[in-house]
């Protein structure tokens, strides 16, 4: 799993030794999986649970995307930070840049999942834009 997600994360952000430590601690796997699950949750929430005509405009979809972004950003900072602080490794700005990249990756997941599942939504099958 770690090997699966590492190229994706490192394509966006690679800095030594922060990225090597993330890989060594298996954080790419847990963050990648979290991103997929969070994005899936928010997409399902938007397309199937909320699934309302009054909440099916592109900007409603964007609101959910931004929440997804925020959650992934927080997770991208908190998870590595908790781990590295426990191990006594010290980083500063790397957490924030990585958090941002993690949020962007989660947003792409949300985007892809949206287009995969929206066909079966009754009220938002054409959100965020027509096919």
């Amino acid at each position, binding site marked *: 799993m770690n090997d699966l997600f590492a190229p994706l994360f490192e394509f966006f952000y690679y800095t030594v030794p922060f990225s090597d430590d993330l890989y060594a601690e298996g954080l790419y796997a847990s963050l990648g999986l979290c991103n997929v699950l969070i994005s899936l949750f928010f997409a399902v929430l938007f397309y199937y*649970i*909320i*699934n*309302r*005509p*009054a*909440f*099916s*405009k592109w900007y409603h979809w964007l609101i959910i995307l931004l929440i997804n972004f925020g959650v992934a950003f927080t997770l991208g900072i908190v998870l590595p930070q908790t781990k590295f602080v426990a191990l006594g490794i010290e980083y500063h700005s790397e957490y924030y840049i990585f958090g941002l990249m993690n949020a962007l990756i989660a947003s792409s997941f949300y985007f892809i999942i949206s287009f995969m599942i929206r066909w079966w939504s*009754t*009220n*938002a*099958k*054409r959100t965020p834009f*027509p096919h």
Partner: protein
Amino acid sequence: MAKLYVFGIGGTGARVIKSLAMLLASGVKSNFTEIVPIIIDPDKSGGDLNRTINALNDYQSIHNEIGDFEKNNFFKTKITTLSEVISEGNGNPNVIDGFRYEIEGVQSDTFEDFIGYGSLDKSNKYLANLLFSDENLSSNLDVGFKGNPNIGSVVLNQFSKSDAFGAFASNFKNEDSIFIVSSIFGGTGASGFPLILKNIREGKIFTGNEKQGKTHQFLKDAIIGAITIQPYFKVTNNKKSKIDSQGFITKTKAALHYYSRNVTGNKSLNSMYYIGDFDTKEYTNVEGGRDQKNDAHFVELAAALSIIDFSNSYSSLKTVNGKATNQITFKEFGIDNTTQDIQFTDLSQSTNSIIRSRLSEYFYFNLFLKVKLRNELKHPYATAYTSKIDTNFIELNPFYLTLSRFNKEFRIWLGELYRNEVHFKPFNIEVITNEKTKEVEDISVTDSSIFSIVNGVSEKKSIWEYTPFPKKNYELYISQLNKAAEEVGNSTLSKRFMGTFSLATKSIVNQKLY
């Protein structure tokens, strides 16, 4: 392919047929595959008559496009003109394509000219003077018979000699039936009903100078139902008008006496319906023409239901050699609660089972199209399919324009039923009237909760109302439209449109009301 020929005689006949069209549009079912309205009214410029004919023409155009689409429940019963029935058979170029039939000689003649009074010998002139007053003789026939059945019975006898009646008789099939709608207290209906019935039962058609005539056995043995409408309104006193409502009851009594011997008494009819009401409403006294435009009345709606009732029961009736062999059925219309403001809850269960859901569905469909459609065109039901419901469709598509026109007529009809006396108030609406003419122009709904506007019926709450994301009012409607559109799938635009709205409306009415 059994057809029901509905003869609407006079202004009341035309208004009942209009109510029938409204019921059929809303999805009320008839057991006949086709209904052929034949309106006989010499007053060709009559306001009510023209409104009926326009509504029938629009109904026909709409049905022809979407009537056979199985996912749509509106406009299901085919309405055909006599001319169309004839063209399926041998054809007759002399029969005009329309719902109203002319009686030769009434267009510009006085009654005097019509009977050739001037050329009568002395003794026949005396006889004519005995039967008809000077006023009768000088009456213009192009605005009807102004409450004079003695004139009507002479003039309307011509209809049986017309090309239209001949073509009707020739094309009448074994499985077809007839229903006659007439008022008993006026001129045209009171005189036309027994005459048409007599001519049908004779089953003979005389063409040209034939003396024997041709017998049409199917016509002679037809199953025939009829409704005779007793007084349900009166007219204002007007010295210039020859119509006087003080004579309505006397005329009714005389006609009923006549019918008891010559209509039901001689077993000419298989099924007879009666209806009437306290004549609380006073209409402006207009002899005929464009200005004879009365509000739709609940009695007319109930009379239209007799046609539906007949269509459900005609198969148990039988005629042999021009005489009904079944026990003649006599039926009257009643409601559960006597009130001046009739709601669905005041109607009997059997009436409600026919009209309550159907009228509610068409009302909501109509309301959505009027109030919401234009602003709600970005949802999947409108945009996610090959045929798109867009502004082009609602502004330029001939089908939609015809539907809009019919829908407006439906709303006016509801508004008129609402403000007439008795008031038929199934929905909590406001009637919009023209300031000058005082005619009903439209209706509006002010209640923000659209499922609270059926009077006497509470909105049903489901468990979904208590979830964090409940859908209410029009949003629920749109959601059902999106769902229904998935069920309907791709089809021609008009079929997809009607199928989607029909399924969605049925679903919300079931879910929220009944």
